[in-house]
């Protein structure tokens, strides 16, 4: 589905305001492919699409991007890939051949980004992924030298959670009994496989462990069994529907744990909107520095431009990926992708998530791994080298 008309109108409107240099130059065609339907649409409309809308609006309000002294507006062409890798590849090809896109943005999620890597590499576009968490960063960046990673590795995300709990246990705040469940999908299986030996190596005892299929309609048997195992901490490598479902079941069963951790969607603003005060103390994957003025300013602009708050994990990284592109284009003064790629590798970038400097594997080595709902905000409590972490608190009931 193509949504060109509305954007064209917006471009035309800003062109009138910014008459002069902007009139003469052709717009920069920015291609965007991500789910609007299918299994991952619920995540991408929170994390991915609003940032593109925000960024394009801001750039055009400024009069466009400065490419070698010429101010050029951006025109975004959007395609829905239906959460289907084959459609992602088709849409990228179409953007390059039919729409003559000057830039194509990285798609959404780990799976779709890996599926798109060969075609993005062949076309030479930088693929700055902000929603891909994988342990194959080294292999992927070797094979696809223009693929960059902002969100971190799945091992670090899982081990971040293990370390937070190990520290709490060493302080005597929690015991060592862990109940761990995961969604039977690539993401959940990979993180559970990393976390299990890490928990055991850290001296934890896994008293309940299971997996459940994606789309399970009744999670109460799982929560009943987990409760019966009397854990001190509950950990779920979960996807959005089950993150909500498991939390609700924990409230119903009155699961009495000191640490309650769920993965994807815990950092969504909707999580606290749904559960209110019961969300207090829940830990989840991701996190941001809520004390950073840059982030707070970004969050306010995001809400003003799109009518919704950014999530407290990958949203900021998605926006950062657009800032990196913008800074590279303006600083190198060209749309030649080979030059842009070299610029990205050689420089560091100031973004809403702090300074980002890719290492030799095109990896952003500092990112948030664990956050926690504290006082109505999801705050980062552990990272691999970001500033602004707050201390974790104990989960205290579900009222």
């Amino acid at each position, binding site marked *: 589905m193509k949504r060109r008309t509305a954007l064209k109108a917006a471009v035309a409107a800003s062109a009138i305001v910014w008459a002069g240099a902007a009139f003469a130059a052709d717009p920069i065609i920015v291609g965007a492919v991500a*789910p*609007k*339907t*299918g*299994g991952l*649409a*619920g995540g*991408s*409309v*929170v994390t991915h699409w609003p940032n593109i809308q925000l960024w394009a609006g801001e750039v055009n309000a400024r009069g466009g991007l400065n490419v070698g002294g010429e101010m050029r507006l951006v025109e975004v062409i959007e395609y829905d890939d239906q959460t289907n890798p084959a459609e992602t590849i088709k849409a990228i090809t179409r953007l390059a051949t039919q729409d003559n896109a000057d830039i194509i943005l990285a798609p959404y999620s780990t799976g779709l980004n890996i599926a798109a890597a060969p075609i993005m590499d062949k076309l030479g576009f930088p693929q700055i992924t902000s929603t891909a968490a994988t342990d194959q960063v080294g292999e992927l960046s070797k094979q696809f030298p223009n693929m960059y990673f902002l969100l971190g590795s799945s091992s670090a995300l899982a081990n971040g959670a293990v370390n937070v709990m190990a520290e709490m246990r060493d302080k005597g705040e929690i015991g060592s009994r862990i109940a761990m*469940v995961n969604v*039977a999908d690539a993401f959940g299986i990979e993180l559970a496989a990393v976390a299990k030996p890490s928990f055991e190596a850290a001296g934890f005892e896994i008293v309940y462990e*299971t*997996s*459940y*299929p994606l*789309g*399970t*309609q*009744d999670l*109460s*048997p*799982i929560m*009943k*069994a987990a409760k019966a195992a009397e854990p001190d901490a509950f950990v779920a490598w979960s996807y*959005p*529907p089950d993150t*909500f*479902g498991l939390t*609700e*079941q924990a*409230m*119903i*069963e*009155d699961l009495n744990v000191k640490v309650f951790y769920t993965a994807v*969607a815990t950092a*969504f603003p*909707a999580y606290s909107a*749904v*559960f*209110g005060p019961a969300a207090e103390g829940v830990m989840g994957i991701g996190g941001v520095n809520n004390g950073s003025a840059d982030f707070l300013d970004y969050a306010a602009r995001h809400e003003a431009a799109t009518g919704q708050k950014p999530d407290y994990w990958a949203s900021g990284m998605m926006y950062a990926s657009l800032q990196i592109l913008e800074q590279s284009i303006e600083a190198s003064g060209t749309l030649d992708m080979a030059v842009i790629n070299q610029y990205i590798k050689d420089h560091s970038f100031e973004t809403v998530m702090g300074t980002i400097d890719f290492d030799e594997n095109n990896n952003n080595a500092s990112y948030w791994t664990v956050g926690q709902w504290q006082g109505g905000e999801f705050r980062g409590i552990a990272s691999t080298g970001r500033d602004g972490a707050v201390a974790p608190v104990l989960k205290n009931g579900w009222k």
Partner: protein
Amino acid sequence: MDIIITGLLLGGTYALIATGLNLQYGVARIMNLANGEMLVVGGFTAFALYTGAGISPVLTLFIVAPIAYALNWAIYRVMLRPLVKRAKSRGMLEQESILTTFGLSFTMVGLMLWIFGGSYFKYSFLARPFVLFGDNYGLNRIVAFLCAVIICGVLYLWLNHSRAGMAIRAVAVSPESARLVGIDVPKLSAHAFAIGGAVTAMGGAVISTFLTLDASTGVIFTMKALIIVIMGGVGDIRGTIIAALILGVGETLVASLINPGLTLAAAYGMFILILLFRPQGLFGRKPT
């Protein structure tokens, strides 16, 4: 004990998902693949009214039902009636209605995306423990089960103890003979299709109190409903209800005693067993 109750609660949910499809398929002969989308529409309405105006999802049922009835009646008249008219055999009607409603499901997903956006819809309604025989159950699931009992019960009584219900059953058994005894088959089929849609949308409103929905989740419910309707026997409400309860208890038994990862396998395993040994479904009639 708690396994049985949890299973029955889940079975009640499944009955809500499948009863509407049974009416549509059993009586109107429309294999409605957009059934799940109608359910999500009901859920979204409940979400919008609860978060926007604070209207309880239970009250929403009374708003959703007439609207969904009218909507489904219109769908039947505009989209499906021409197919019924030109179909030369039941097989041909099934084939064409599957294709048409498959298309309809995409249209509905598109419309919902346009109106509601693609994000997840979840709200907290009665997410409180309810103690029964010393175990905790979600109060929202108990309420959903009671709604299922009431909706299915009323439907069953109406079908079996009213004149209109008897006429509908007659159409389910044999549309040709029903015509001979003076039953207006086209009108009743539209009626049955619309009631089926209304029941499904009410089910969606109830289910939204404890499940997370998004515009694309409909297909999951369509699949479940298909399994249950075929297991229970086409055109028989009792069969659907019993198949839903069996499926609910069966899945919960497997999840609690063996492994939650095997619930899907268990559901399809039961489905295959019934297809092998009773291809017409639990309460279905053998084709003559």
